[in-house]
């Protein structure tokens, strides 16, 4: 009988522990971060943002998205161009965890571009490279290689290809944060940004659409946030080096003038879908010389980081 009581006690204790563990994992994530992130509004020039570590971890994956960059380019009806992408053979050149994380972001951005243009014949090569890099930095288990390979090989459900690619990167980000390796997440984001800016710069050379000009110019805002995020880890020598390189392009961006006109959002309900349309205006100003300098600067940065 005493034995039975002990078993009951043990079971109760185990279940209680499980309950407490579960509650820890769903703890309220957000402290009042609004106060940590000042967003300039109605300003003449975009001031570099001040970002805390808490904000860094939450904002990480959203700084630069391969899907959004590729969608903007495809939206301009710019045809697919394989030469914009990094060669997967170059992945072998990356040795340290820092370099591998950077390459993971870079190839992740290329994967977003391929997915958006539904170029599944190239996808397997890129997901294999990404999987190897992810394994090397011990996050390969979060990259759903088999499902992605099946979707790409069978040319089936391309929306799922984008969904699973994106979710895989989000899971990698969450895991790196959980295991106190957020710095690598930041490096991945930097890789995504560099490649996204590079692809945009290549498109800008062949397409004169004003939206391309604005896309290149507004990278000033995104780069400011990116550098602020990376600075959280600037004590690391590799990170300090990356920040130095990004600061070179930032110096050119400092000449770009971004102004805003603030308006009230409009609300429209159509077929049961509620849409809010922002009426703020963003005006990006730069002369042709500066525009060309930015394009050259972005390409130089990418070639430099790819060790070409």
């Amino acid at each position, binding site marked *: 009988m005493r034995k039975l009581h002990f078993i009951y006690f043990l079971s109760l204790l185990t279940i209680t522990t499980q309950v407490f563990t579960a509650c820890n994992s769903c703890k309220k994530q957000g402290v009042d971060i609004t106060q940590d992130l000042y967003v300039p*509004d109605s300003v003449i020039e975009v001031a570099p943002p001040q970002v805390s570590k808490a904000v860094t971890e939450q904002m990480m994956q959203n700084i630069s998205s391969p899907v959004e960059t590729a969608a903007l380019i495809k939206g301009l009806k710019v045809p697919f161009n394989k030469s914009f992408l990094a060669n997967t053979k170059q992945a072998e050149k990356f040795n340290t965890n820092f370099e591998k994380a950077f390459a993971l972001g870079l190839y992740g951005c290329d994967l977003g571009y391929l997915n958006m243009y539904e170029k599944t014949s190239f996808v397997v090569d890129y997901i294999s490279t990404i999987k190897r890099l992810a394994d090397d930095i011990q996050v390969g288990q979060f990259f759903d290689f088999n499902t992605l390979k099946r979707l790409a090989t069978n040319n089936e459900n391309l929306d799922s290809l984008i969904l699973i690619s994106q979710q895989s990167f989000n899971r990698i980000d969450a895991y790196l944060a959980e295991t106190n390796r957020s710095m690598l997440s930041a490096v991945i984001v930097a890789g995504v940004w560099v490649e996204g800016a590079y692809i945009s710069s290549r498109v800008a050379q062949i397409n004169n659409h004003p939206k391309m000009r604005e896309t290149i110019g507004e990278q000033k805002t995104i780069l400011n946030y990116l550098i602020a995020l990376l600075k959280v880890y600037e004590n690391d020598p590799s990170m300090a080096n990356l920040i130095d390189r990004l600061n070179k392009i930032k110096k050119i961006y400092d000449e770009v003038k971004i102004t805003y006109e603030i308006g009230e959002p409009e609300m429209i309900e159509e077929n049961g*879908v509620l849409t809010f349309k922002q009426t703020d205006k963003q005006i990006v100003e730069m002369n042709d010389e500066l525009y060309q300098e930015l394009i050259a600067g972005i390409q130089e940065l990418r070639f430099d980081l790819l060790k070409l």
Partner: protein
Amino acid sequence: MKKILLSLLVALIGITHFNKVKAQSEEELVQICTMVAGEAEYLKDFRIKLDAGDPPPVQRFPVLLKKDIKYRFTVCNSKDFEGKVILQLFDNNRQLATTYIVATGKDYPYIDWVCTKTGAYHLVYSFRDGKAGLAVGLLSMVGTM
């Protein structure tokens, strides 16, 4: 001996069942939310869990949104909680959009946002009347403008 084995079995089933419920809950909500979002391309999900409170507690997430993109913000509530989630989109302290229109009392499973300014925004989630709740918010992209 039989009783001991039975007790162990009950405990094991209890633990396994609890783990499954916990694990499924948020992941399932993400899957449901993805379906509710329809054709929009998934970008990111946000897990919201708040206790009851007055004033209603909130959970905030900073996001960077880009000009000329139409975003979709989807919300899905857990059936296990009473709270109905509300999303408010802020730019600094200015509310720009919401899934709950106070004037009509209407709740929307998703709202679309046409962004005309690249920059940082805040997603602020709370539960109506300050009730406790569990929900998932989804950020997805409808397309470019």
